[in-house]
């Protein structure tokens, strides 16, 4: 009950003009950088950090979370409309979102994503509000062996993302893993596969590859196709918003995605990105029509987009309760709080409870603000899909070039994106799936580092994993998944049917 009282106090203090304005500005900026391809929340938060300093820690925290959060809302827009991920956590949204758009369902996709983000944000906040200290300590129980087993589990879970050509998929995942080793390894600072080039030392970042493989490749594909003037359908208001069937199919994926995203968000590394892949994969597995995935399944759009919003809330847990930033945006938030002399950590609840509760309250408000901000924009954005490609594509290309440069201020990343785009164009022609490639690239570094750390920890004797219950449990889950998939008797009747369809697994 004390918590409720504190929360009410929090609401009272967050309803100041300054805080509401900060929340609105943050949400607006965040939505914008989310919409603009390449520009991501991390760089933006770093840029606005100095401006928040005069207004006290709570206002600063509210504004920066607003940006991060808004970026998760806005990131899906370009994914859906032009197949270009607005930021890293929206790559998955391309798979089905763009297909929905091609079927003229861009409006519903955008509207459902906005609602899903709202629900996910609320669920994430509830988790943060009630379980933060508990979960914070749970996050600490992940040592190198646990990470290793979690990564193995993730590979098993995500291996169903592309189903048409398993061998090609395996090849692409290996290629992704290989490319993730280029550059200076963070564990031993040793340059690998750099061929003496200082540029390659930066390593191959995930975002330029994703933007190249999806966005630039799409632009190239459209450019070589003959332009057929689309049958101009009048965008009716009814078409802008989801129909009953779409809503019905979205509710459960939204809830599942939200819960999954929150828990994945607790872990270090690119948690928002992994949460989207995991949510998509989970929906595909649970769906009665997995063959629709990749062809505009609404579940495949709302689940990942919900997951990335609640993952943001999840990653606030280790930051606020442990003072340990597990993700890049939360590192900037930590810097911001410290500049105000607020030290997040286990003591935050006793030394600055007002900061925590005002923050929670403000985020409820901000979440609502984002929904109100985003729903009316649906109509506007949906019209973007109708712009002639001769005009739209060059504009988008320039935005991609600038956006990708801005992340690390490196020309190298721009070239990586261009090359990935050309490569992606041919990969599509030859029907190689690109999503396993991305998965390899995202999971590669954590997998490699945790394997090496585990070996160091047990001095080469992997049997030591057996003494760690959590690690064993994760491994068992991975094995269970494999068994479930490859032994028909474990799945019962429905399995044989789906095998015939050939696309279920």
């Amino acid at each position, binding site marked *: 009950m004390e918590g409720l009282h504190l929360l009410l106090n929090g609401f009272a203090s967050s309803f100041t003009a300054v805080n509401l304005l900060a929340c609105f500005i943050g949400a607006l900026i965040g939505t914008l950088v989310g919409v603009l391809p390449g520009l991501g929340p991390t760089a933006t938060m770093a840029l606005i950090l100095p401006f928040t300093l005069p207004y006290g820690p709570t206002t600063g925290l509210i504004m920066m979370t607003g940006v991060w959060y808004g970026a998760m809302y806005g990131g899906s827009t370009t994914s859906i409309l032009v197949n270009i991920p607005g930021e890293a956590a929206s790559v998955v949204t391309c798979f089905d979102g763009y297909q929905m758009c091609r079927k003229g369902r861009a409006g519903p996709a955008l509207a459902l994503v906005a609602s899903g983000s709202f629900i996910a944000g609320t669920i994430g906040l509830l988790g943060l509000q009630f379980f933060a200290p508990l979960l914070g300590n749970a996050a600490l129980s992940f040592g190198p062996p646990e990470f290793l087993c979690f990564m193995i589990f993730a590979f098993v879970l995500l291996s169903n993302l592309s189903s048409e050509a398993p061998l090609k998929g395996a090849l692409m995942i290996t290629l992704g893993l290989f490319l993730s080793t280029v550059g200076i390894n963070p564990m031993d600072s040793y340059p690998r596969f750099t061929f003496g080039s200082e540029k390659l030392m930066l390593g191959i970042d995930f975002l330029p590859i994703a933007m190249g493989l999806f966005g630039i490749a799409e632009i190239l594909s459209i450019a070589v196709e003959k332009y057929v003037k689309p049958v101009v359908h009048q965008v009716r208001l009814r078409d802008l918003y989801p129909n009953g069937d779409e809503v019905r199919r979205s509710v459960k994926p939204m809830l599942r995605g939200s819960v999954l995203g929150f828990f994945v968000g607790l872990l270090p590394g690119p948690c928002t990105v992994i949460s989207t892949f995991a949510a998509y994969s989970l929906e595909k597995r649970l769906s009665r029509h997995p063959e629709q995935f990749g062809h505009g399944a609404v579940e495949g759009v709302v689940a990942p987009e919900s997951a990335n919003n609640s993952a943001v809330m999840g990653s606030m847990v280790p930051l606020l309760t442990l003072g340990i930033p597990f993700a890049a945006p939360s590192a900037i938030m930590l810097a911001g709080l410290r500049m105000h002399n607020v030290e997040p950590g*286990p003591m935050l609840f006793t030394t600055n409870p007002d900061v925590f509760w005002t923050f929670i309250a403000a985020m409820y408000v901000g979440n609502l603000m984002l929904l109100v901000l985003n729903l009316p924009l649906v109509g506007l954005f949906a019209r973007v899909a109708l712009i002639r490609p001769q005009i739209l594509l060059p504009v988008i290309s320039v935005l991609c070039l600038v956006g990708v440069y801005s992340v690390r201020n490196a020309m190298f990343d721009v070239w990586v994106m261009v090359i990935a785009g050309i490569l992606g164009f041919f990969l599509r022609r030859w029907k190689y799936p690109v999503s396993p490639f991305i998965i390899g690239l995202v999971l590669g570094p954590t997998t490699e580092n945790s394997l090496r750390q585990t070996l*160091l*920890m047990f001095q080469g004797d992997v049997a030591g994993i057996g003494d760690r219950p959590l690690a064993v449990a994760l491994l068992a889950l991975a094995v269970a998944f494999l068994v479930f998939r490859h032994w028909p008797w474990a799945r019962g009747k429905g399995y044989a049917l789906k095998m015939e369809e050939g696309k279920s697994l």
Partner: protein
Amino acid sequence: MKRWAMAVLGVCLPAMAHAASSYPVKPINCIVAVEAGADGDVLVRPILQRVSKMLGQPIVVVNKPGGGSSIGYREIHAARPDGYTIGWGSATIITNKLQGVSPLDYHDFTHLGGYATFFPIVIAATKSKPQFNTIQEVIAYAKANPGKLNMSTAGVGQSWWVAAMAFIGGTGINANSIPQPGAGAMTVAQVAGGHAEVGVAALGSAKSMVDSGQVKFLATLGDGRAPAPYDKYPTMKELGYDVSWESTNFIMGPQNMPKEVVAILAGAIEKATKDPEYVKFAIERNTRWEYIPPGDIVPSFDKRRAVVRDIMSKAGILKEAK
């Protein structure tokens, strides 16, 4: 290509300045080779703000992280030495060259002054099986059980890894070091979770866990004790071990900068560093504040370079780039 992209971002440099006498006549770029929001970045920004006010020109911070900071250092080195590109530096500039990551070290730049020193500390877990309350217990345990003590450290060759190696070497123990990627958050998290018995990290990364009692602060590896309230923990030197490593942050520019420009910048940086408000800020950011005049940087780094060179050659990773 590069200029074009920069122009788009609005950080373009207007036409070249003519006379150094009126320096600065246009905005100055400052390349900071770590991520925005990293300790080094947070600490240098207030100095740049003050310098910018004194010189009457904006200073644009350009974060160029990656490659153990070597990529940013290379860009500073390659910039025109006209005073319109300066940069941030830390102890990684010593290790880069020794590891073969970059052919450059602190000898290849014009120094403009150092302003604060980060120092590492030894922390111990409260959840692990062997528990330690003092640094002597750690040393005794590691000596009695060679190779059994797990020590969470920064990535090999990183500044705080050097500190951990200096600790292991200087005390003559045999510990099992487990390097962690990233800026130190993971190092502390691993100790707090009890996955490693001890760890070496910057005070700033460990502070909240120390305050809450989830990890124990055992000793400081810097030259002096930590600022209050952590001044009750001893330095290794006080305990009779020849162990010390710290990372001084400084501002530098490309080689051969005009003397007048150096004088203007170094003067402004000294004034900004000595501003009492900044001193307070630097200490709150878990550093030992100290102003180091430009001329003293190279000699003090020479001493540290000798230490780290020795450590790296023992670890078998010494590979001086040409």
